[in-house]
């Protein structure tokens, strides 16, 4: 019995998700159809992918504000390679992902080696990358990609759209890194107490660089998917995306002070955002009102988590 209640507590976010699904299923007849649910998954695939990297960063106690700009930048870089340079799409994607990883890596270096706080460091690179994207394309969108490339964002395998599959693979990789690899243990240790982690022999700077590199890589993948789906490269394609991604991770119960959180709960966080947006559109909630409701949901979810934590703290002190 104790285990069940513990499991429910740990998975409170899924309870929340299910309640929300039930609510929209009742409120809107079009909601609970296979077509619409696949639609929801497709809509969240881009920030779903980026949230994998962001989860690592936040587990470390950091934050990555560059995510949206990396998405925009890679959008333009990849488009530029294919259209302006006539590069083979596969090669263009690979090089673009390397560049996005490098962007993340540089964030990591600035944070770990120079010691600039993540908030400022990634905000600076957000601005820089956004500027570079505009420079590269002269502020004009780039379009006309090959059929093959468009498959990434628009194709399906069986009945399932490829972006969803990409998101699922990214989440599997995320779960693997956190649960099976020794890097995952390092992430938790570092986020929990950097000093103690270093004194246990963890290469703190290397791991910090690795985590921001991964965040760059996953943002890059998100950027490619977005480019293919939109069929046009926009220098502001990822504008503000970092906040959606951070919202997903925070909804997923990853502590913003680092050291605790689960990838599986982040998946729920991503789905909540998707279900919420989709359901509200189906119910004809105005887009202004949608913003208000999203903000309130974030406060509720994170707030209840904080209250829970305080209770646990008081309980552990009393005991």
């Amino acid at each position, binding site marked *: 019995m104790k285990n069940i209640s513990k499991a429910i507590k740990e998975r409170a976010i899924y309870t929340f998700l299910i309640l929300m699904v039930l609510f929209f299923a009742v409120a809107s007849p079009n909601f609970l159809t296979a077509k619409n649910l696949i639609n929801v998954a497709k809509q969240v695939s881009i920030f779903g992918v980026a949230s994998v990297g962001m989860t690592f960063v936040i587990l470390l106690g950091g934050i990555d504000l560059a995510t949206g700009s990396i998405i925009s930048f890679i959008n333009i870089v990849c488009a530029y390679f294919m259209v302006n340079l006539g590069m083979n799409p596969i090669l263009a994607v690979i090089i673009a992902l390397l560049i996005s990883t490098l962007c993340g890596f540089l964030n990591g270096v600035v944070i770990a080696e120079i010691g600039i706080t993540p908030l400022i460091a990634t905000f600076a690179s957000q601005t820089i990358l956004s500027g570079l994207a505009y420079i590269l394309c002269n502020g004009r969108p780039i379009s006309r990609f090959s059929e093959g490339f468009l498959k990434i964002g628009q194709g399906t395998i069986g009945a399932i759209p490829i972006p969803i599959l990409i998101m699922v693979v990214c989440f599997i990789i995320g779960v693997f890194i956190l649960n099976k*690899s020794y890097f995952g243990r390092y992430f938790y240790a570092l986020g929990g*107490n950097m000093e*103690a982690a270093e*004194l*246990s*022999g963890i290469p703190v700077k290397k791991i910090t660089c690795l985590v921001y590199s991964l965040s760059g890589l996953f943002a890059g993948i998100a950027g490619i998917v977005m480019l293919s789906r939109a069929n046009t490269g926009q220098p502001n394609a990822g504008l503000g995306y970092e906040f959606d991604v951070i919202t997903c991770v925070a909804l997923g119960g990853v502590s913003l002070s680092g050291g605790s959180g689960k990838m599986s709960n982040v998946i729920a966080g991503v789905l909540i955002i998707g279900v919420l947006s989709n359901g509200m559109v189906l119910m004809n909630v105005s887009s202004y009102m949608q913003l208000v409701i999203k903000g309130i949901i974030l406060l509720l979810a994170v707030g209840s988590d904080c209250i829970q934590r305080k209770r646990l703290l008081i309980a552990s002190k009393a005991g």
Partner: protein
Amino acid sequence: MSADNILELQHITKYYPGVIALNDVSLEIKRGEVHALVGENGAGKSTLIKTCSGAISPSEGTIIVNGKQFERMTPIISRENGIGVIYQEFDLVGDLSVAENIFLGRAIRKGIVIDRAAMVNESKKVLDALNIEIDPNVLVKTLSVGYQQMVEIAKAVSQNAQLLIMDEPSAPLTKQEVQSLYDIVDTLKANGVSIIYISHRLEEIFRLADRVTILRDGQYVKTVNAEDTDEDELISFMVGRKLTEIYPKRSSECVKNEIMFEADHVSGNGDTDISFKIHRGEVVGLGGLVGAGRTEFAELMFGMNKKTSGRFLFNGREVSPKNPREAIEIGIGLVPEDRKQKGVLLGMSIKNNINMPIYQRISKGAVINKKKEQSIAEKYRKEITIKTPSIEQLSKNLSGGNQQKVVLAKWLAADTELLIFDEPTRGIDVGAKHEIYSLINTLVEKGKSVLMISSEMSELIGMSDRIFVLAEGRISGELNKEEFDQEVIMRFASKSKVEG
């Protein structure tokens, strides 16, 4: 209460869970006297002054200030009754001026506007009265530590402090600054202010104090007139206790004739020219006062800080670890003093903690071998009897002694040969202490070596094969087992630059 006394403490007792920090201590401070308070680390000096300042409430006893009787103080009541405390950490705001700091929280105002000129004027009066030459307009952060301390004193005096408690005021000061401090103490005394002066430096006690009170193990030992005593007598009062039989015996054959670690004229991180050797199977004790540079030396050995000169040799090979990771690879492990902050990862399980340094080793590619992870953690849980229902238990749910064992298990799993223990039993109850000592014995019996930093004299003598004493970042003495003597160690530890 005699009218001559500014402060009387009667039968003050302070319990903490499992510990009696102060046991029935009574003390009288006369008006206008400088009263020194001495004792070893952990003798109860800080607890006693915190009782006076209102930082803690005594479990039993009475505090009488100026004839008024109190069960307990609060910081506000304490200040209102003329008690000022100069802690080692100053309560100053660096970005405010000297005058603003002196009047912090009590700014002189004209209506709602702060009257800067009046504050500067008043500050000047206070500073002049103490013969302190500081411009009240400068920012506190631009002042040296010595001057900042003077600002603290001026602040207390401006609040009409009649009793000033100074906690090791000379510790952070240079020689000249100490001289100025003495002058200020003399001036205060001439103005009728009483002073409780805590210090480890015995020579300054004889320079300043009228009377000296000695505390030991939380108990009042004696109050003597400074002129009727000498350093030797004070030291014997401070340490005068028999070693209790909590130190398990170990075979003298542990120490091998093989040098495992050597520091060769090493300087850096505040330490100067440190040389010593550790043999295989040896427990070397590092004694000295808090701030003598012992932890700092451990940081050099463990790669947390860079040495500026000298060499380290490990098993005959020169090594210079640049970070803890490299130190661990060499074979050095550190059990830090601040267990909760630096030792264990509180939010992670015992299993994770024990395997943390070796995760890479027990992984195939990036994938952790979970069977190994499990079996290693189980092995050490049993071997050093970590009391827990499961190795999945989070470290924060363990007692201090068991957390210490987790840290130790981590280094055993990593197969380190030289273990540095920094205050290994601080905050651990007596039973668990005994277990930690037994574990240290087991380690050296297995051919590992131990460097033990300890401020507890009896622990140092009870556990070490040899002892080095540090004072002000230098080795001030070395003792072999047959020379162990608390008074000698104390003398080496309180050796100042002037003598050395």
